[in-house]
């Protein structure tokens, strides 16, 4: 079911590139992604075997792709640059982490708590041993926070730079809060040393494959959702909102509801991405909330091309792929490369890599 959808989607998103080419790219990427977990199940001595290392690495990048897509929905479409999406990502991750910690701890308390000499779980941990409730938290924690923050911010008509700085302050405050041991989330060590998920060994090849597959599916679903939104009337109102909010208001639209919806949706997507990220990389801690991480996410979107659906994915993939390679090959020069990349993209590729590809296609 997902394949033909994805196909059309890719075709639309990069229509200018020539339909056949986009189809071939989209198909190829999706096929490779779907094949990876299967190849991972092959015995290790098989030539086609994909190692756990590669699988988790690509899985991690796919989670980042979802974050980039979510950020693009609010920035590229609604014109709200959030510098605090790391917070939503981490909240989703922490919600999943709580479940994994409870699994690992069995009937007892998570190790860091018994160490704090706490004898019972704090109220906000209630029910986290239940996978379904943890999943609800994955959605609710970032969703509710986004709802409250967005409700007030959009009511006061905070926008542009102010909005960006406020979201940055929010994630910074969140980071400081989670750093504290007393907050009850393991301080700066966060959660690690997970054992099982739903009773399956978290390091088993099958579990890895399933987690990876879930990530691919979430990404495809988010793409589909984004595509439907972008094509709907709702999406057009958002774009209008981005380009001329006052004119839209004069036409009788109340922008607050639109903004709030896309904002909460984006936060929830980030939370889901975080929830899939944690079991794959095996750790969640407050550094995910550092303002730097959120800025980096904005860079993925800008690099790939905001206002498109494929662009952010390209951006996230490119930057993270480069990071993995550069930090091994030239650790000293990695930051120079990254810095120059940002400058070059903003100066010469205002529409990102996707814009460049399109232009090439037009020629």
């Amino acid at each position, binding site marked *: 079911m997902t394949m033909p959808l994805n196909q059309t989607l890719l075709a639309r998103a990069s229509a200018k590139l020539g339909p056949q080419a986009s189809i071939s790219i989209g198909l190829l990427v999706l096929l490779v992604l779907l094949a990876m977990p299967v190849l991972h199940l092959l015995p290790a001595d098989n030539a086609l075997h994909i190692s756990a290392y590669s699988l988790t690495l690509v899985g991690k990048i796919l989670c980042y792709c979802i974050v980039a897509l979510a950020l693009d929905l609010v*920035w590229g479409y609604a014109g709200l*640059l959030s510098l605090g999406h790391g917070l939503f990502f981490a909240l989703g991750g922490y919600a999943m982490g709580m479940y994994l910690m409870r699994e690992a701890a069995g009937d007892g308390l998570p190790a860091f708590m018994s160490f704090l000499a706490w004898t019972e779980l704090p109220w906000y941990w209630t029910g986290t041993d239940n996978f379904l409730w943890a999943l609800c938290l994955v959605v609710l924690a970032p969703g509710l926070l986004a709802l409250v*923050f967005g409700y*007030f*911010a959009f*009511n*006061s*008509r*905070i926008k*542009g*730079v*102010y909005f*960006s*700085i*406020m979201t*940055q*302050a*929010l994630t*910074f*405050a969140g980071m*400081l*809060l989670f*750093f*504290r041991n007393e907050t009850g989330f393991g301080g700066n060590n966060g959660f690690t040393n997970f054992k099982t998920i739903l009773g399956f060994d978290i390091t088993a090849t099958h579990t890895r494959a399933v987690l990876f597959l879930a990530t691919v599916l979430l990404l495809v679903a988010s793409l589909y959702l984004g595509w439907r939104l972008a094509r709907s009337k709702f999406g057009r109102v958002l774009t209008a909102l981005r380009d*001329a*909010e*006052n004119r839209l208001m004069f036409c009788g639209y109340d922008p607050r509801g639109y903004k709030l919806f896309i904002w909460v949706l984006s936060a929830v997507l980030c939370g889901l991405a975080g929830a899939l990220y944690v079991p794959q990389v095996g750790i969640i801690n407050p550094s995910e909330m550092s*303002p*730097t991480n959120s*800025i980096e996410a*904005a*860079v993925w979107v*800008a690099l790939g091309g905001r206002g498109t659906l494929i662009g952010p994915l390209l951006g996230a993939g490119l930057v993270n792929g480069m990071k993995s390679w550069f930090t091994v090959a030239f650790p*000293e*020069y990695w*930051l*120079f490369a*990254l*810095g*120059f*990349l*940002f*400058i070059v*993209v*903003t*100066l010469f590729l*205002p529409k990102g890599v996707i814009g460049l590809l399109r232009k090439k296609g037009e020629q």
Partner: protein
Amino acid sequence: MPTAFSRILFSLLLLLPMAAQAGDANDFAAANPAKQASLLQQWSANPDSARLALLEALQQGRVAADSSKQAFIEHDGSYRAVEGDAAPTGQTRKLRLNNRMRGLISTAMASHQLLSDDPALRLAAAQELQKRAKPAQLALLEASVAREADDAVRDALTLALANLQLVDSDPTVRLAAVRLLGETGEPLARTRLETLLDPDVESDPSVRTAAETSLAQVKRKLLVGELLGQAFSGLSLGSILLLAALGLAITFGLLGVINMAHGEMLMLGAYSTYMVQVLFQRFAPEALALYPLVALPVAFFVTAAIGMALERTVIRHLYGRPLETLLATWGISLILIQLVRVMFGAQNVEVANPYWLSGGIQVLPNLVLPYNRIVIIGFALFVVLLTWLLLNKTRLGLNVRAVTQNRNMAACCGVPTGRVDMLAFGLGSGIAGLGGVALSQIGNVGPDLGQSYIIDSFLVVVLGGVGQLAGSVMAAFGLGIANKILEPQIGAVLGKILILALIILFIQKRPQGLFALKGRVID
């Protein structure tokens, strides 16, 4: 009340021939630590001016012992015997002192300085003894009070004595001492008086009541000091925030560039200070103390030049696209950080306070105002004034304001907008450089210096109202003071979180900041 016996003892001690102390240095050098400590205690109870040189040398860590345990004092690299003119035999090793020994030496030194002819020295010694006097020094203090001609020194000595008299066997002496302590604002007096409230410690009820009154007095004085201290630290933090944010108030507030590289301008200013310091150390060590003054213009011009270069090459292409300036300047900031890391190493570099920025002024017994902070508060106000003058009283300022208010109109009127942009960005960066010089005097200087100030800087500018210099000033001091009021109540971590939450709430209420631009401009 000096007893006759102690007076006699004291005068006898003064009359003792010098020869009696001849062995002191060698005794000390040969003794084990415990013996050394008891020697020092004996000396502090029975000062002798002949020992002064030895104590001074001990305090400065210049006393050494040779292999035959004879004491020597180092003078510019060579060792001289304390007594006689023997040369050291075998290997000389400096005497190893620990903090306890240093404390005892200070006490002994203070006792000996009471014999000095200089009232200022005696006063300092008396003040030292207020903190450190031991019961064994009771007789000495009594004798000194009786002998002292200078009023200020006598008062200080009486107070030092009162501390010891709290346990006197005579209730009237205790009462007088308690009353005297009530007149001081010493934090130590508070603890001493508090112990007297216990009937097991102080049996006389009248002394206990007096202690209660005195305690209330002391507490009142301490409270004044504490409040003043809190106000000062709030102002100081505010001035630091202001210096960090002022450059941003221009590049972001006026030009609309979301300048994520602002922190790196602070960092470059601090590194300029470091370079100036290194050059001074190498070429003009005698004028080293003046290096911060020279660093000011250097930092200003270095960062202004870098800022202008960046404006011409990168930022000028991005006017009108504020959110994209964020990305480009973020890239610039990464490059600058890594550049500094490659050039100077990842470690912090050492920037030392010159003597006139070290230490502080003792205003009240529990309030010391550090010089570097006082200077920085003044400097912040000076920079604000300078910026205000530049923006409001010069042609450049007029042009900057014209361009920021309406770029096209300004261009039509013949304002060279490109040049103005460049100069304004240079000015903002230069001011950030000046901030960097100030920051180097209170914190560490490393490649990541800017990163720790960038969020605070943005908050100050946004809170104050973008484009409003006065708003930034108010916001900086407001944040500083609010922070310092919250910190003692709920701790630094929660305080910081609460401040951030409050700012977020405040901006909801007043999205344009404290000082909003009046008008009905709409996009």
